[in-house]
């Protein structure tokens, strides 16, 4: 199982964002995406997750292998922590949630309503969801937002464990996760340099 991205171009809302992105990851390898705000990290991750079809190029990954975690936590405020996790475990084939609860220190919060958690606790619950998916490839968009240093370390350990178990992780982040041997990719060179082409021919004044 590998993740191979070759000459990938992605667009958001009809505007080309990235062109010619390429990398290959083998089991146990992680990739940290770097780049300034608006450079296209989220767009790339959404393309990898299959949410946005790529404009050109190809993404080679086994089917149903990718777990995506975006900016939004995807939690239901009215449900308890345990109910939220159990729901996602059920969607992904009924795995046991105890490892996820332990990995992100959620044991004391299981009966709390997700709506009453702090931002950092919500984030931990959202990241714990990755462990119950059982998916080998993680695509994470700014996963450490609102986490304190202790929990960033906990998250780093979870990623480490995932990679050691033969998983793959693509992470867009600005901070150091304490993972020594992961590759790093600056996506700045791949930013589409076209002058903002409008998707609407009437707006761009082109011949029609």
């Amino acid at each position: 199982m590998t993740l191979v991205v070759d000459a990938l171009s992605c667009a958001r809302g009809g505007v080309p964002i990235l062109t010619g992105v390429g990398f290959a990851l083998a089991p146990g390898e992680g990739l940290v995406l770097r780049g300034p705000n608006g450079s296209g990290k989220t767009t790339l991750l959404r393309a990898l997750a299959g949410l946005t079809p790529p404009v050109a190029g190809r993404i080679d990954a086994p089917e149903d292998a990718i777990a995506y975690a975006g900016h939004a936590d995807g939690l239901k405020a009215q449900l308890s922590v345990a109910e939220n996790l159990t729901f996602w475990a059920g969607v992904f084939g009924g795995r046991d949630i105890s490892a996820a609860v332990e990995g992100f220190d959620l044991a004391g919060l299981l009966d709390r309503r997700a709506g009453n958690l702090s931002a950092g606790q919500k984030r931990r619950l959202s990241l714990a969801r990755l462990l119950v998916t059982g998916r080998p490839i993680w695509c994470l968009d700014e996963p450490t937002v609102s986490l304190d240093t202790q929990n960033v370390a906990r998250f780093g350990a979870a990623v480490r464990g995932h990679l050691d178990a033969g998983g793959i992780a693509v992470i867009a982040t600005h901070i150091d996760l304490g993972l020594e041997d992961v590759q790093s990719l600056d996506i700045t060179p791949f930013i589409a340099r076209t002058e903002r082409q409008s998707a609407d021919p009437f707006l761009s004044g082109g011949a029609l």
Partner: protein
Amino acid sequence: MKGLLLRDLRLAFRAGGGFGLGLAFFLIVTVLMPFGIGPETATLARIAPGILWIGALLACLLSLDRIFALDWEDGSLDLLATAPLPLEAVAAVKALAHWITTGLPLVALSPVLAVLLNLPAEGFPWLIASLTLGTPALSAIGSFGAALTVGLRRGGLLMSLLVLPLYVPTLIFGAEAVRRGADGLDAATPLALLAGVTLATLAAMPFAAAAALRVNLR
């Protein structure tokens, strides 16, 4: 799929879930109607099938935008789209959850309100039968409308305009079945057509809704 259905039902019944909104609307419309029209029982009996059906339809419409909008806002829809569940199944399960929390209570409440509108006794079985057969179509068509407008702020108005024309066949055949039943005529034909409309929407709408969701998630 069962987990998603249970989650949606649990969310609807918990505080702030919106269960009862449609029911309260249906109750208010039909209770106010005799005050506005006057107490002549003959007039009320004549318009009762139409009022009950329009009330149920509008009550259904009221809660449609919740089918996908809440999941879209908190990011769950992105996660569901990357889950092993096909998006068609997600759309179908969510339409089913909407029917259980909105359509089914309307069916249960309708005989009580029919008494208030002086619907003739012969019409009651047809009222329950036509609403039971017709409300699933309202939820299925509604899920398509909700999927089309999921990314829009205040998309409720646009969704109503998109969905209401599609509701017309269900309304015509549903109300006609009750009217004929109340008049003591044979209501099997409109009921069969109503069932046909419902089956067609149940077959097609999950696919249409999933296609609309895929476009909106880009």
